[in-house]
């Protein structure tokens, strides 16, 4: 099948080619091999393998409970593994990974401004109070500005909207100059506009910072225009590779162990497993899905 998602750009994006993979790249930033994680006697992840290179934006796709958070936590080293390896190129310390957790609930009365949270990203793991310095301040402002949130610098983080908080948390995660940025469901609970802004911000960061980005989401569609590769999780197993090579009926049918249809409609992808549609548009607007037809 020839690049079925190459034509999925929508809403007037300037580039029409889909993102090009950085060619001739050095060894991958992240190599996950045969990763198996057992939680409470249940195999949440089974023999998951994939690579991620610098400058790549990868989608970690799966429905709720597919093991997306567990996989991200395993990469972070916060989750014990039963088998397999997670290898990060170069040094591995507090700064080599940036992480934006799912559903950070920030107290609106917390006396922490956006710039304070970003400054904690620079050196929050260190001992001592961290004396005020102009270079630290300038660095925090530079980071906020790189996510388009400089105007929020003096606002309390807890009082920001979901999309604004997301930007500040991304700036926090970037502060330690990570080679790999992990985001857990950053698009959940965002409205359409914030979703698009967040995705294009992440795509911009892969170019400007050369960072590899792994984004978990249950809805593949917002990522489609920008995503280089995909790690598709179902039943604890994973299919990974270029988006066009993975989001296909035959590949996903093998992954799910039953017939899966991949439909392309209006620049969106709808993955239909048995009677069930794996696409978040269904959760938001059931009518929309019904009119796409009822396969299998």
């Amino acid at each position, binding site marked *: 099948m020839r690049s079925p998602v190459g034509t999925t750009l929508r809403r007037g994006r300037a580039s029409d080619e889909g993102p090009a993979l950085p060619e001739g790249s050095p060894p991958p930033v992240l190599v996950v091999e045969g990763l198996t994680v057992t939680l409470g006697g249940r195999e949440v992840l089974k023999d998951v393998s994939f690579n991620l290179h610098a400058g790549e934006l990868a989608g970690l796709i799966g429905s709720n409970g597919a093991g997306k958070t567990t996989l991200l936590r395993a990469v*972070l080293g*916060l989750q014990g593994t039963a088998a397999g390896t997670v290898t990060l190129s170069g040094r591995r310390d*507090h700064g080599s990974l940036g992480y934006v*957790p799912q559903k950070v609930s920030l107290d609106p009365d917390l006396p922490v401004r956006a710039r304070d949270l970003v400054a904690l990203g620079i050196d929050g*793991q260190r001992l001592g109070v961290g004396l005020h310095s102009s270079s630290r301040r300038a660095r925090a402002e530079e980071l906020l500005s790189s996510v388009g949130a400089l105007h929020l610098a003096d606002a309390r983080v807890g009082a920001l909207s*979901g999309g604004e908080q997301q930007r500040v948390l991304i700036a926090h995660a970037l502060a330690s100059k990570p080679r790999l940025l992990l985001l857990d469901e950053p698009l959940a609970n965002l409205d359409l506009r914030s979703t698009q802004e967040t995705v294009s911000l992440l795509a911009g960061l892969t170019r400007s910072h050369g960072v590899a980005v792994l984004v978990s989401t249950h809805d593949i569609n917002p990522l489609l225009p920008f995503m280089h590769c995909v790690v598709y999780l179902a039943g604890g197993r994973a299919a990974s590779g270029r988006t066009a090579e993975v989001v296909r009926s035959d590949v996903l049918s093998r992954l799910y162990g039953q017939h899966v249809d991949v439909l392309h409609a209006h620049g969106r992808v709808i993955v239909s497993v048995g009677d069930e549609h794996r696409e978040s548009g269904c959760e938001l607007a059931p009518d929309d899905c019904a009119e796409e037809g009822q396969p299998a």
Partner: protein
Amino acid sequence: MGAGLFSSFMTGTWLEASIVAVAAGAVGFFVVVRGAAFAAHAIPQGAFTGAAGAALVGVNTLAGVGVFSFLAATAIARWGRRARRDVVTALILVGLLGLGSLFLSMSLEYSAQTFSLLFGEPLAVGTGELLPTGAIAAACLALIVAMYRRLMLTSVAPELAAARGVNPENVETWFLLSVGAATTLALPVVGALLVFSLMIGPPSAARFIARRPAAAVAVSVALALVTVWVAIAAAFYSGWPLGFFVGVLGVVWYLLGRLVHARTGDARSTGDARSTGDARSTGDARSPAPQGPAAGAALRKALAPPGISS
């Protein structure tokens, strides 16, 4: 002010109470931002048992309070890890308090002593206690300063700390130990029931008044100092218990803080606003009251203690 209030007899009281306020104000800031009010309630209750036990066997009260504060703090930190923390905290509280009631029943000087342990007795502080008090306060503040950034990071979101290799559970253990140290200092002065109010009232207002974390800690310490000073003077003249004034002032600070918060336009307008779009540009732009920022700034200035900028 009468001469009696500032006589040499009272010097120890003033110094002791000021040391207590600085430690409680600083530790209390993290109690409030970490949502650890229940632990800050339970540890003093456990420490009360230490005081009752010390009286029974005839050792120094500070030692008894210190040992039991430490026990309560480590028990909450240890057993709260893998279970529901509020339940574990409650069980430690009731277990220790039960033991405390036994100690008290075995003691002869029942009522007067119980009252002072529960509600505080500042006028009983002698200068002999100042050295250990100062040492514990210094250790407590050193702990807060050393752990400051990690405490802030875990207070915002423990996952963010964990991702940078900071173990949130270890930070929590150190934090609870600092609560135990502040309790040890404060219990003999303000009493077991009201240690808590000194650690909650001032910081609860400070986080409304100040936006920056460091400024909020400073405001919290300043309000805690004002609290104990006003309470000592008022208790001295009225003969009412010190704890009454400490408790009431804690609530007053909170209400004033909310007022400042509402008037400065710093408050978010509605809960729903958080999940919707990104249209608004700055924190101040969302003020529900048009005259908010200007009027609020004046009020904030009027309320802020001298030398503290928010």
